[in-house]
């Protein structure tokens, strides 16, 4: 064998993987820059110097509240939720062997909405408030979150059990997800039919994803769940690569495809359930994050999982910053912004196809 060529393959490959790491780092850097901008942006006009002083612990009472209790949690929540949704989407697209799979494919969002509907309508957790900027307020956010989480996990477990019965194939899971999802949607509609206007308004309000709902307590829970499953997904990155080679190949490489699929789907759904129950429904991040990165650096999950993570964090932080600033002082629901930006971006990606290495 020609030694020169061998060296070339090796160096070519290292250069190629190095490039992927560079892209991930750049995306992260971009997120940091955006984060700095986001701390400074907002309806209360603060100068960068004031922000810096507050971060160093030198701010006055008002600044402390704005920075530490409003802006920073918002940025952290957006970044972490973006990571979670995007990583969940990345793994689901692999495990269902379907590029359009997203965190809500298994009906998680519909389940969460149903849970929230039960809490707001049947348990009376929502009501009208006329004084604040928001016309509607959720009285007991914890009750709604808990119910939404239970609804989301109920769908997930139902879908996974149904899929187990029919054989753990991607088709079985997607079909079960669609069926169970629409069942829960229908149930939500029935509940709304018997609800008061106020309750329906509260529910609709809840359904719009809003990053501002999270305070440090919720952020810690989200970070914990996202962190645990990020590690789990990374530990399985070779398995996901093998699954991309087809089920038969994966099995011949010693991968227990059914188990990987059930556990991975469970993890992705759990992440989504936690985020959706705290923040409401945020669409497109789970689809866009992985899709952008897959085009930029290919389908190797050793890089795709961390890359999707930072891209998801970046996208949601960017969306939330736009939602806060575009028609300030009005804060748009971030779910509306992600859909508005996501749909055209997604279409653009589809028409552009794959970029070369």
């Amino acid at each position, binding site marked *: *064998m*020609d030694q020169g*060529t*061998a060296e*070339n*393959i*090796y160096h*070519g*490959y290292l250069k*190629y993987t190095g490039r992927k790491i560079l892209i991930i780092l750049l995306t992260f850097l971009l997120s940091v820059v955006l984060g700095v901008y986001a701390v400074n942006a907002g309806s209360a006009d603060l100068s960068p110097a004031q922000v810096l002083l507050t971060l160093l612990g030198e701010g006055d009472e008002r600044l402390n509240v704005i920075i530490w209790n409003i802006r920073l949690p918002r940025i952290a929540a957006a970044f972490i939720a973006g990571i979670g949704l995007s990583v969940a989407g990345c793994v689901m697209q692999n495990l269902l062997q379907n590029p359009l799979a997203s965190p809500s494919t298994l009906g998680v969002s519909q389940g969460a909405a149903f849970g929230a509907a039960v809490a707001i309508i049947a348990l009376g957790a929502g009501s009208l408030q006329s004084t604040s900027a928001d016309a509607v307020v959720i009285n007991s956010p914890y009750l709604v979150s808990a119910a939404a989480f239970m609804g989301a996990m109920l769908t997930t477990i139902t879908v996974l059990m149904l899929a187990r019965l029919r054989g753990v194939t991607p088709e079985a899971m997607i079909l079960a997800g669609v069926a169970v999802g629409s069942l829960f949607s229908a149930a939500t509609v029935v509940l709304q039919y018997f609800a008061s206007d106020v309750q329906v308004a509260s529910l609709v309000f809840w359904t719009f994803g809003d990053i501002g709902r999270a305070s440090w307590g919720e952020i810690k829970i989200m970070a914990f769940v996202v962190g645990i499953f990020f590690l789990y997904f990374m*530990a399985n990155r*070779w398995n996901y*690569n*093998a699954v*991309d*080679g*087809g089920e*038969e*190949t994966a*099995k*011949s*490489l*010693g*991968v*227990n495809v059914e188990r990987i699929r059930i556990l991975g789907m469970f993890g992705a759904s759990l992440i989504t359930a936690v985020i959706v129950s705290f923040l409401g429904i945020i669409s497109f991040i789970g689809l866009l994050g992985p899709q952008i990165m*897959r085009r930029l650096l*290919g*389908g*190797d999950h050793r890089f795709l999982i961390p890359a999707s993570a930072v891209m998801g964090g970046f996208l949601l932080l960017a969306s939330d910053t736009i939602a806060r600033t575009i028609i300030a002082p009005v804060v748009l629901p971030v779910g509306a912004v992600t859909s508005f930006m996501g749909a055209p971006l997604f279409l653009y990606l589809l028409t552009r196809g*794959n970029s070369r*290495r």
Partner: protein
Amino acid sequence: MILSVDGIEFSYNGRPVLRDIKFSVNRGEVLSILGNNGAGKTTLLRCINRILKPKRGTVLIDGNDLFSLSSREIARRVGYAAQRHEGGRITVFDAVLLGRKPHIGWEASEKDLEIVREVLASLSLEDLSLRYLDELSGGELQRVIIARALAQEPRVLLLDEPTSSLDLKNQYEVMKIVKDAAEERRIAVVLVMHDLNLALRFADRFLFLKDGTIYDCGGLEVMTPENISAVYGISVAVEKLGDIPVVVPL
């Protein structure tokens, strides 16, 4: 004896496909499975690496019962290149590196990369190493799949129609690589092949599969016009061209 298969029986949804399969392969030997479409050749390979669980029978590899091993342990011992393969958005290098998966702990080592590099070079895939699989021709993809199975460094190599998409030159080169690997690494190769002439050139032994059971199994002596006619249902002549045996349909 490196691979020995005894009394394998398999059914798809109650429809028997394989019964009473018994054969063994020695170190350094290439066994070619021959038979009609639908005879059960692919099914047999899948039983040997436990992608499918046979209803009855045993598979021993190096004296170890396959059914007492974990799937990772099996993957370290048995390499498999499937009849059909999917492209996907990973590079040739990464696809072959995947063959190292059963040996890799957390991350691929220098040695893994080195093995991939050697395999790529031996199959003349260097120039394609950073190409995505979904940008390859059918034959190029097939060579990548064979490369992956070789990179697995198995004790038993199963190849399902490894040359079906290859051009004439690549057919002979790939088969030569496989045969050399069998001899040098002292591993057993079991392959499915429809090209009888190619099988005659490179296989040491032949196994005729007919209606899910073994019709005949042995060395060159079983490649008779009678056997081939009986299995494939077409009359043939087996001649010698120089000292190369060839099969010609009549």
